[in-house]
């Protein structure tokens, strides 16, 4: 069974001016697609040939892990954005964020710091553990919290390819704009 690049739930220019159409074209059209292609090329003849993506993320190593996790991470990333996002959490998710971090503002500050300080390529995540508590974690390169038994709720890609065409070295500016297109409705559904 070959994996496929999922269609985006919005137009490539829908996140302008925060994330440019050109960035989406490369990030989704080239990087995400390449991870899908590489994964499909790597798994035939291995124990992961017929595995689902989550199993690959949790159990594989090396090139299969790098590409499999990057497929999962990018799909998770792209599907949390919207041109008309809910800009703050509500309901049970809001309560959980308040319980875990004190307030939405405190959470936002801590998440921003995690995304800004991950050195090199990687991801910052909001995750839920098996007791229902929320946490912020960082992963390097293709790292994915599913591997640690955590439930990812949302993520910020801080590989330079996620923002370099739009913001160059100004990662903090990218994170500031990330908040403007993040759709908390999607995060609530995941929660």
């Amino acid at each position: 069974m070959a994996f496929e690049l999922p269609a985006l739930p919005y137009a490539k220019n829908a996140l302008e001016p925060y994330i440019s159409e050109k960035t989406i074209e490369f990030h989704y059209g080239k990087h995400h697609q390449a991870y899908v292609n590489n994964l499909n090329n790597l798994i035939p003849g291995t124990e992961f040939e017929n595995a689902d993506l989550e199993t690959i993320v949790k159990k594989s190593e090396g090139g299969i892990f790098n590409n499999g996790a990057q497929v999962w991470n990018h799909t998770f990333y792209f599907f949390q954005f919207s041109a008309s996002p809910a800009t703050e959490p509500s309901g049970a998710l809001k309560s959980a964020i308040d319980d875990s971090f004190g307030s939405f503002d405190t959470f936002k500050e801590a998440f921003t710091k995690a995304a800004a300080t991950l050195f090199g390529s990687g991801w910052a995540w909001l995750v839920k553990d098996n007791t229902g508590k929320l946490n912020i974690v960082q992963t390097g390169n293709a790292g994915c919290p599913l591997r640690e038994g955590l439930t990812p709720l949302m993520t910020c890609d801080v590989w330079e390819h996620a923002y370099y065409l739009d913001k160059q070295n100004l990662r903090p500016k990218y994170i500031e704009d990330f908040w403007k297109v993040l759709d908390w409705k999607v995060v609530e559904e995941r929660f």
Partner: protein
Amino acid sequence: MSFELPQLPYAYDALEPMIDARTMEIHHTKHHAAYTSNLNNAIQGTELEGKTIEELLASISKLPVAVRNNGGGFFNHNLYWEIMSPGGAPQPEGDLQKAINSSFGSYDNFKEAFTKAALTRFGSGWAWLVKQGDSLVVSSTPNQDNPLMDVAEVKGSPILGIDVWEHAYYLKYQNRRPEYVDAFWKVINWDEVAKRFKG
């Protein structure tokens, strides 16, 4: 004494069209400058002040992660600017050429191994040609690590290095790292690499 951002030995547009002026300028004035000032901030007022960059790198496993990341970034970019130039010799000559032939079999074999190291480094990092005594090896390191660090898998003296962080090539080449690596071969300053080989 603090570390200083060096001037480039050529103009920002000198490596066009292989490496574009905008990439060079941002890479030098933003990325390299940030590593330099962050390194100074990390060591200021500590017992590390006054040590050479090589001394810091040699005992990096015992030092704060900010020194590893920014000290590596400071050193690596210093080397990167120097081992490139416009209009250099197309291939190594003399003793360096002999050492490459004896360590890799041929220049082409070396080029293939170094290119592979640069292309297969997943995420951010560097590929290196490393001097170990009289012989040479190719290696790669993640993020801003380098072969002078005591944490490096392959240790030695780096005499050639290519930056494969996306910031080194994304404005011109985007996802096409192989095109950037191909272009890099055309701007290597083999005289400088030979100088580093002599030590």
